[in-house]
């Protein structure tokens, strides 16, 4: 098969080289691809291969003598490393709490905004503003809001008559605090996506359902939810991938991974191994585990969830 394909490719190439017009196409095509192809080759493809080799090596940045091929040792170490499992657990915690809340709230607000209400652009702007603002800047604001002494969060608790908390300094509360800030930052994006999805549902479905006497609840579960399932699917896939890649927000809120490493998600772990402990081999192995998890999850979703997603 491969030989045949190669023969086909070779003969087509000869065919192209023989005819002046086709040859022009070939030359122009290849020339125009050179800048992007070289860039992707040097800054994505070669690094991926190097990262794989790195993950099979002991590679300490500071001493050139401390470098050797060690096979699967880095991966074996990760399997038994409590710190690594902790980072996986924290990442899963982050995603499992954040994503469902995000989807429910975003859909609810999008549906309310879709009721042809007055002031839609105003509301949309407000919900969307956190999405485009700098992660570091708004995380600095949240960090100050969580300040145990002068922060706004404790002022609210006091007003509600509840005891003050230490928020980001409390091992139990640090992760929920981070999740709340992340929800606030990302919500507007999913609202806009849902709103676009809702606009795509033909009104006639709802009119027909109203004639048949369907109530709001039935209309939601029989029309809105199934017809929005591709949108929900898209948001779900993106959110899961992004929750495995989350870094900036958590790094600004809790630079050292929180009290007792309670907010050290997988990318913070990789960052610490590579750029604070200079163990690049181990960091690369963890990065490949991240890569594998994200790939498997995307495939799993494609195989298991996508067939159940309702496309028009």
């Amino acid at each position, binding site marked *: 098969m491969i030989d045949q394909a190669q023969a086909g*490719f070779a003969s087509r190439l000869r065919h192209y080289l023989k005819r002046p017009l086709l040859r022009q196409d070939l030359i122009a095509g290849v020339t125009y691809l050179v800048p992007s192809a070289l860039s992707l080759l040097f800054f994505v493809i070669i690094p*991926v291969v190097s990262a794989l080799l790195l993950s099979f090596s002991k590679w300490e940045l500071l001493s050139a003598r401390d470098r050797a091929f060690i096979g699967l040792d880095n991966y074996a170490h990760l399997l038994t490393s409590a710190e690594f499992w902790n980072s996986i657990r924290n990442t899963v915690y982050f995603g499992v709490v954040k994503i469902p809340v995000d989807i429910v709230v975003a859909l609810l607000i999008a549906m309310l905004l879709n009721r042809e209400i007055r002031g839609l652009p105003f509301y949309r702007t407000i919900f969307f503003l956190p999405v485009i603002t700098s992660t570091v800047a708004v995380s600095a604001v949240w960090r100050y*809001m969580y300040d145990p002494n002068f922060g706004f969060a404790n002022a609210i608790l006091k007003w509600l008559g509840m005891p003050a908390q230490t928020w980001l300094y409390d091992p139990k509360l640090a992760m929920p605090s981070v999740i709340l800030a992340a929800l606030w930052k990302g919500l507007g994006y999913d609202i806009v996506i849902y709103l676009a999805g809702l606009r795509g549902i033909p009104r006639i479905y709802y009119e027909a359902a109203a004639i048949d006497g369907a109530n709001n609840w039935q209309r939601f579960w029989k029309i809105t939810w199934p017809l929005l399932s591709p949108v929900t699917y898209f948001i779900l896939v993106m959110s899961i991938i992004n929750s495995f890649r989350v870094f900036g927000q958590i790094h600004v809120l809790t630079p050292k991974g929180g009290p007792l490493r309670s907010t050290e998600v997988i990318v913070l772990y990789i960052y610490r191994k590579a750029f604070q402990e200079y163990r690049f081999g181990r960091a690369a192995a963890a990065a490949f585990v991240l890569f594998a998890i994200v790939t498997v999850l995307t495939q799993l979703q494609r195989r298991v969830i996508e067939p159940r997603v309702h496309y028009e």
Partner: protein
Amino acid sequence: MMGMEVRGKVANLLTHLILVTAGFVMVVPFVWMVSTALKGNSEIYIYPPTWVPAEIHLDNFARAWRYAPFGRFYVNSVFVAVTITLSQVVTSALAGYVFARVRFPGRDMIFYMYVATLIVPTQVTMLPLFLMMNELKWINTYKGLIMPFLANAFMVFFLRQFFSTIPMELEDAAKIDGCGRTRFIIQVLLPLSRPALASTGLFTFLGHWNSYIWPLIITNSTRMRTLPIGLRYFVEESGAQHNYMMAAALITVAPVVLLFFLAQRQFIESIARTGVKS
């Protein structure tokens, strides 16, 4: 009929009530930032905190600006984000054109390799890239900040989709009139693709303006820091007072918010269209 109308009004009121409450929650951090940025040195320690500053201290901005070289951070950020965006538009327009309209053996295979680069997380490539930059002595240079992002397969993919919608006859007509390929791209294709270029360009710019992990890794001196990294160290290390910190945060946020208000529809429509997450 009356009952229906009343129910509709109640539902509308309830809708606005929920939206106003949710909107209020969304706005609070921004109000808190602006309010603190204007407060005097003693007022930030009042507890419970005040919402409206007793005295407006606009000099906080000048102080924050002086505490850390925010001017320099601005220049760095603008230079890096603009260079990357322009480069990506050029390299992606060329590649997108080829994948949409020039046929030759092996083209589709190359295209799949481009798309395959999209599944690789930055967290994987950043490690060898850092070591590479270290060997090249590109750490703490503009080259180090910019070079890894000269091309991007997502933009190639997006522009290819858009270019495919422009009729082939147009190019044939241009060719008959003696218009070469490069001239066709510059004078016909790109002007026709302005909306697509604007949306992807906007998101590329924004993504790199707010970019965090790579500039954090690749810079190690104050003068090479971009705005987010400069702000991060300002918040982390300076021990500066909260009013100066919030003033600095506001300085960082302001241009993008301004841009957003100017091109709001562009932003929202691009997201709905491309589903890009910055």
